[in-house]
């Protein structure tokens, strides 16, 4: 499954869309901060991340909560660490209530070393139809997310993309 996801991540037209929006560049994106803050409140998660999936890494373009120093220093993680990776294929909100029980993520260093336990995310769908990355909430305790929370994530992910598109045109 991961190989197929990596192939999707490396599709040239998807990466060109990321370049079009300038998302591969390091930049302050304060205009996303109110969104990640509102997601943190609504989902009651200590971490909220807006991530963009490049060919081999995920980069964090906005976040809420204390990310580990080395991830802050790197500005992201290797692609295979990204809980949002399946969004490339599923293209819809998803959740993993207990990451330690998930075959794809149970050995992920963010789970085994950093203690992340639950995930809910929605895809960032560009107006050209590509999945750019995800908006996600992460918790350090196993927990399910209710459908209304996933719907909220979907709406906020749309707003993230609207702002990314708007600021890319400036």
């Amino acid at each position, binding site marked *: 499954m991961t190989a197929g996801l990596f192939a999707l991540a490396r599709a040239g037209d998807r990466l060109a869309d990321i370049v079009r929006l300038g998302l591969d560049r*390091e930049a302050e994106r304060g205009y996303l901060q109110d969104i990640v803050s509102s997601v943190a409140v609504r989902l009651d998660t200590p971490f909220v991340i807006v991530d963009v999936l*490049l060919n*081999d*890494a995920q980069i964090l373009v906005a976040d809420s909560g204390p990310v580990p120093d*080395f991830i802050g*220093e*790197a500005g*992201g993680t290797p692609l295979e*660490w990204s809980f949002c990776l399946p969004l490339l294929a599923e293209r819809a909100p998803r959740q993993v209530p207990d990451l330690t029980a998930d075959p794809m993520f149970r050995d992920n260093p963010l789970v085994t070393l950093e203690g992340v336990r639950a995930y809910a995310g929605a895809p960032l769908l560009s107006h050209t139809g590509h999945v750019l990355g995800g908006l996600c909430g992460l918790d350090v305790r196993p927990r399910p997310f209710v459908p209304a929370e996933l719907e909220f994530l979907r709406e906020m992910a749309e707003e993230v993309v609207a702002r990314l598109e708007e600021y890319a045109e400036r």
Partner: protein
Amino acid sequence: MTPSNDQPQPGTGHRPTRTGDVPPETGHEPASSSNDIAPGAGLVAGGYDQQPPTERDVLDSLADLLGWPTADGIWDLSSRDLGLRRPVEDSADLIRMVDHLMNVGDMIRVAGRSAKVRLVANEGLSRSVRQ
């Protein structure tokens, strides 16, 4: 010598009118005879020459930024990618070439950013595991 068949040679003084050749005290283009101006010099000389840029002009611009070996190497690889023989003379083909170059540049930046994230994150993870 046919201009479009010139092979780029560093240090030949073939293309004297870039910003580096402008005397800083005057800010004017240096005086030059017509023999000093490269083919298709509308790209680089003052005035409004209607000559379209040639492959050599584009390569000169690239070489200003990247140096000759890199500029010529990337240009050569791009022409092969597109199945074009050098020198690329047709304007539409030159536009295809520079579009291709821009795309290659974008993807190099994406791949570079990815690789840097992986290197720094993995190094940080190792450090954090050791502590």
